């Protein structure tokens, strides 16, 4: 059994493998990274760095996209 850590994604608690990258998480969720933006602990994560960003216990992620609005 590999070790897991708890993070929060869009307000929901989620368990991920320790050492998992942000890119791997987005892939696991099934998101097209070209259409979303990610904030980690209130800091923007540049898209080009997703593979190098290693998730840490307690991370607060916001993953957003564009929807209809006025």
């Amino acid at each position, binding site marked *: 059994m590999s070790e897991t850590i708890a993070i929060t994604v869009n307000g929901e608690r989620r368990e991920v493998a320790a050492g998992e990258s942000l890119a791997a998480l987005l892939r696991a969720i099934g998101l097209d990274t070209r259409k979303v933006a990610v904030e980690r602990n209130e800091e923007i994560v540049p898209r080009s760095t997703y593979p190098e960003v290693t998730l840490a216990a307690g991370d607060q992620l916001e993953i957003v996209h564009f929807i209809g*609005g*006025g």
Partner: protein
Amino acid sequence: MDGTPAMTGDDTWEVAGRRFRSRLIVGTGRYKSLEETGAAIAASGAEIVTVAVRRVNLSDPGAPMLQDFVSPKDYTYLPNTAGCHTASEAVRTLRLAREAGGWNLVKLEVLGPPPYLYPDMAGTFEAAEALIKDGFEVMVYCADDPVAAKRLEDMGCVAIMPLGAPIGSGLGLTNPFMIRSIKQNAKVPVLVDAGIGTASDAAKAMELGCDAVLLNSAIAHAKDPVRMAIAMKAAVEAGRGAFLAGRMPWNYNADASSPMTGLIR
């Protein structure tokens, strides 16, 4: 005679160095479906569309997205801060929008509480300052207050967008004198944003000399949104044409059009 002067072709407007022909900016919210959104926006002739930034639905990550129906290749996306009631929420939202789309032209709105969602000008000034410092080009939703509007322009906002009436109210231009005053004082584009209910409201805003009109619900909540989109396109063009033509003076006495000479006796 060929063509109609100034209604087409060379009558363009510019915001933050980008040139546009359509003077109608439309929102992409409140439609019944993404298909209807795409059809109505195409019918409106708009070149700029406002979009909101929201959390991805993690339980349905493959759901169709706005971009698939209103492509950022075809339209200039103008990310908004709808729903933000503080400067910090608005700034966070637009930083995410810039990362998602790469755009620095944005619509800032910091709203007061329901039921009016009237612009919170203290929060708006604070957010505008932070965004401009961070390299954004800010089109700003604001109160119909010429002093506040001038201050936003002096801070470096690229367009001033006073409300015609509360968001989604469809009440039209409740204070046309103030809209006109703001336009007369401004060197950057002035747009009426919010409150437009029907075609004549949009035409009236353009007749006051506004550079463009921004609306959403007037089309999305019409019984037939595509037909209303076509009507709005025509109204904005008609209002602009009337403004350029220069309306006749108001006159409180009759002034007959037919000659008063040669009458039969």
